[in-house]
């Protein structure tokens, strides 16, 4: 579903954010992307929905080379990818409800359907009671949940979340991760960048670790920190690629 082929990224100021990333995320997978601050997690995710262009290499989404699609096709790529941004990126002049409605308006969903879908999405993240608030009137965690609701309101086949639990207490975090798991269980490919070691350790899903722009680990049932167990070594042995 998502594939990086020797992708590198150098920012205009010369910072080398990613070097020679090779990664393959299959349809319906759930992947944690971990690594210290500044290791390049956000940069890697931005390549997927073409907020950034790789300096070298290619990125494929659903078999399509996103580095090659024309500018006017980019919106259609993004509609297939729900993104929870690290800084939320809610439209400041719109209420939570309108923020979600905008995404559905963009794809011409009928009004009655819009009401239904927004209610469902907001219900899922426990934000239905704040639907008429503007982002500035919300706490960090509430903005984050609104952002999550927006990312999944149009049922995209791919969900990307950059630190979706960064501002949440452990209980709410766990609730959010469960929502992501449930969405994943419905067949959505979920790709989560996180610092939250508790969540990663508890869920025991595939873990890709970045350090300094390099992939240093890719485990099928991984923990936040590398635990060199013989079992996990065995597990990572029969990998395709």
């Amino acid at each position: 579903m998502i594939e990086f082929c020797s992708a590198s990224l150098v920012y205009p100021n010369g910072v080398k954010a990613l070097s020679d990333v090779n990664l393959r995320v299959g349809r319906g997978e759930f992947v944690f992307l971990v690594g210290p601050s500044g290791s390049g997690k956000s940069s890697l995710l931005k390549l997927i929905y073409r907020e950034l262009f790789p300096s070298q290499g290619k990125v494929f989404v659903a078999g399509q080379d996103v580095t090659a699609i024309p500018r006017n096709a980019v919106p259609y790529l993004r509609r297939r990818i729900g993104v929870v941004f690290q800084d939320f990126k809610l439209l400041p002049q719109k209420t939570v409800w309108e923020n979600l409605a905008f995404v559905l308006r963009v794809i011409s969903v009928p009004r009655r359907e819009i009401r239904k879908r927004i209610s469902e999405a907001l219900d899922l993240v426990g934000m239905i009671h704040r639907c008429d608030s503007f982002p500035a009137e919300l706490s960090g965690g509430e903005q984050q949940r609104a952002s999550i609701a927006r990312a999944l309101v149009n049922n995209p086949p791919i969900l990307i979340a950059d630190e979706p639990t960064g501002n949440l207490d452990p209980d709410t975090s766990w609730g959010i991760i469960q929502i992501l798991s449930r969405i994943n269980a419905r067949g959505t490919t979920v790709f989560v960048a996180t610092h939250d070691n508790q969540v990663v350790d508890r869920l025991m899903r595939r873990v890709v670790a970045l350090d300094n722009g390099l992939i240093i680990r890719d485990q099928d049932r991984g923990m936040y920190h590398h635990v060199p167990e013989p079992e996990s070594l065995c597990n990572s042995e029969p990998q395709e690629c």
Partner: protein
Amino acid sequence: MNLRNVEYLIQEAFIGIWRNGIMAVASISIVALSMAIFGAFLLLVLGSHNFVERQLARFEIAVYLPVGESRQKAIEVRDQIRALPLARKVTLMSREKEWASFKRRMNTEIDLGGVTGNPLPYALHIESKDSRKTSRLADQIRHINGVAHVTDSRETYGRVKAVADLVKILGFAAALVLCFTTIFIISNAIRLTLFARRHEIQIMQLVGATNWFIRIPLVLEGIILGAMGALIAGGLISLGSGYIVNVVQERFPPLLRDISSGVDSRQFSMSLAMAGAFIGALGSFVSIRRFLRT
């Protein structure tokens, strides 16, 4: 793009104006003020141009009858001149009025004690249909029986007209410069409002909105704000010019009262509003391009 979207995008434009209230008020004020200045200047130029033309037209040819000639004869001459195809307006001046006003004007400066009765001859003022054929008309009038003297103000007229034309050209050139300045000020204001909303635009792009979907409400906002500002400018100008006309009618000598610019203020306001809407649309459209680049 279907009907549902059209409705939504229009709604978005109005919500955008409402929620960016301070910005909207600021843009409307900028448009209103700059267009009021431009419009007022344009009216001034048009008005002075019209005024000069009318004053010039008024005294193209003056015809004097011999001193002591009867009113009967004067009317006869007037009718003869009226019959000439080149003459447009023939006015028989009132001897009494002219004399009275002459006396009033001269009273303080010259002693008129020695003059008794009315020494003025009958005079006629003639406007010609075509200012270029004034001298031909004057010649035709000279041949009419009973005419003592004809002044063809063609020479003075020509000189004054040259000056008037120069003033007119300068006035319109200044109006043109002011027009560009106005457009520049307004498009700058638009760029600033859009700059303040560049993050919003970027977010819309990131969640999959096409550039048209983002652009249409913003351009509509530009049209609405531009038209509203220009309408306010039109209102200000109407009020202002109405006031000036009033003052002039009350305080100025009769000769100078006729200062209409020859422009219908309703029509002028409408054209101004249309210009405002157009500048708003074009300005937004052009400025958005920059913020739509990723």
